[in-house]
């Protein structure tokens, strides 16, 4: 894996292709909300622990999210403090103090390494994929909807996604991220022990995501989410040109 960036999450409600017998849009919308699809904006802390080639590394990020953009600032360890990753739509920018300009990283360049993990965390299903209901399937003793998502943009990192959502809870249990040929590249499993208060109601919110490399299952990354809060961030925060300021 190329790096160990893990970034915040997902997603937007957007437009989806509906399955004829299952209300695809409604199901995916609900699950997305439990992973951060809040229009007003969110922030949280992500602790990332990676095992790569039997080596452990840990990092901590402070994530600010709004409207499919993510501003991720490195907090720990100290030598990486101040580094910023800006997920603007599908593109990623890297910046650190002292550089004359930020560096863009395209979707395909993200595929190698942990940038791919960050991309999993920030995948925008609504905007980038067309969803189709496939069948019902049991995962971890839970009956789940299996949706197949196909990329409808040229520059997405993953061309296809298999996505399992629990019928009972409406929470996404698992996702497999595939290449154009359908070859598995990465897989992710989710758990939701956090609670988020939104418009007077409490919603389950993701607390952990485990991402595994399909080619080498020993290479794993775990994102732990804490302190999720609704926060209305200014739009200017997500402007690439403001990174230098």
């Amino acid at each position, binding site marked *: 894996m*190329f*790096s*160990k*960036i893990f970034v915040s999450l997902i997603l937007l409600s957007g437009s989806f292709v509906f399955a004829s017998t299952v209300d695809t849009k409604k199901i995916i919308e609900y699950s997305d909300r439990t992973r951060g699809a809040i229009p007003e904006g969110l922030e949280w802390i992500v602790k990332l622990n990676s095992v790569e*080639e039997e080596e452990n*590394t840990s*990092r901590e990020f402070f994530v600010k999210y709004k409207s499919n953009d993510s501003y991720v600032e*490195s907090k720990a360890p100290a*030598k*990486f403090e101040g*580094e910023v990753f800006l997920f603007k739509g599908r593109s990623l920018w*890297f910046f*650190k103090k*002292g*550089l*004359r*300009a*930020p*560096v*863009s*990283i*395209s979707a395909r*360049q993200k595929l*190698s*390494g942990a940038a791919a993990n960050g991309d999993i965390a920030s995948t925008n299903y609504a905007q980038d994929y067309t969803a189709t209901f496939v069948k019902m399937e049991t995962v971890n003793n839970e009956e789940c909807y299996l949706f197949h998502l196909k990329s409808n943009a040229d520059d997405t990192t993953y061309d296809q996604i298999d996505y399992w959502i629990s019928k009972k809870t409406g929470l996404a249990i698992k996702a497999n991220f595939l290449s154009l040929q359908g070859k598995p590249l990465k897989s992710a499993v989710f758990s939701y022990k956090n609670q988020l208060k939104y418009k007077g109601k409490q919603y389950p919110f993701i607390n952990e995501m485990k991402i595994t490399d399909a080619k080498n299952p020993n290479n794993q990354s775990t994102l732990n989410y804490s302190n999720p809060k609704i926060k209305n961030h200014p739009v200017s925060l997500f402007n*690439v*040109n*403001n990174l*230098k*300021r």
Partner: protein
Amino acid sequence: MELWSLAFKNLLRNPRRSIVTGLAIAIGYTGLNVFNGYVHQVERTLAITSIYLNHAGHFSIIKKGWFEKGLSKPRLFSLDQQDQTELSDFFRPYENDFFLKTPIFTGIGLISNGCRSLPFYIKGLERIYRTETPKAPEFIKWAVLEFKRDPKETYISFNDDDFPLMVTYNLSQLLNKKVTYKNAASLPPSRIIDCQKESEKEYLSKDPSVQLLAKSFSGGFAATDANIVSHYTVGFSFLDDISIEGPLSLTQKLYDTQSISRLIFFLKNPNSINHWKSKILPLFEKRFPKLEMVFFDDPRISPFYTGSASFLDSLTFLFILIAGISITLTIINSLTISILERSKEIGTFRALGFTNNQLAWLFGREMILLTSLSLFFGALFSVMTAFLINASGLEYIPPGASGNIPLRVSLEPQFLFISFCSFALLVLIVSYFLTKKRISVNTSRLLADS
């Protein structure tokens, strides 16, 4: 008169036929030599490009597995400081054999102009590489003019504080970086770039700075500014879209390491490479089971050179075969006609006491003389043709090359000599056996046929 003299006089029997046959052989031989001279030139140029410009050296030391995994897992497949110390100790007794011994760091990452990022493949080298390699005799002889640039036009004229970088012409075009860095004062002021605006392209093209992004050895992304001090070419078009080169210190700083990817060795006597393969390599392998000594003709380090060289060898072999067959058929034709025309004379010679063997050698001598003279003139034509081609100033783009190179022919004396002897021998054998077969006719019939 001796038998050779008799053979020569027989060639003059039908001067027109002898000249035409001789010309056919001479022209075919010229073509073969000139082609081989071209192939020789190309092979040497490719070899020198690989050794000196693509930094294969005459041999390199790497960690085993570096070719397969060195780019994706550089930390695991680099030579750390302990490796470097141990290698230094091992090679100390052979110091006099080396023209130059130098480390190289190679890595991948992204190079950005502030708006757009492209992948790069970087080579970090000590400055001495650029100053010393142009002095190597074989470099002087074989490297094309483009590569014989003044070392001062490279990063050696800049300090580490200038973050000097060389970028290939192609990559520079792709990044829209037209100017080169002179000093810190020459840098335009840093400002926010609105990448969406067309008018910003002008600003970008006048700013020689770029950003390099890579995965550091200590984990995480690492990034640095760098300044384009000059443009260059690596000689191969497929590398010219991604290659950059800078001081070793720049790369080690970017990747946050003191390790190196390879240790490169240049021999004072390139011909001693076989000695190194046969005598020193076994010692090295015994001492360093986890390291590998890779010679420049290994396809892993010089894929283009080895692939091209073996293709050219095959092509040369094919040409030699064609030339050999052509010469043989020409001789067979000429000889057959000659024998048929002189059947009465053959009978007379038999009557005079010449054996079949002696007659066969008589005709063999004629063909040898004809072939030798033809080959001799062919060799002269080859020299003249090579001279004319080299003086013509013609240029061409070889497959895979990144630009024009002069069309040159470098005749090989050994090839001339060996092919000369081989064809002469071939002709002698063919003539002897063909004549023996054809004159095995009853003598009285030969005499009666007149």
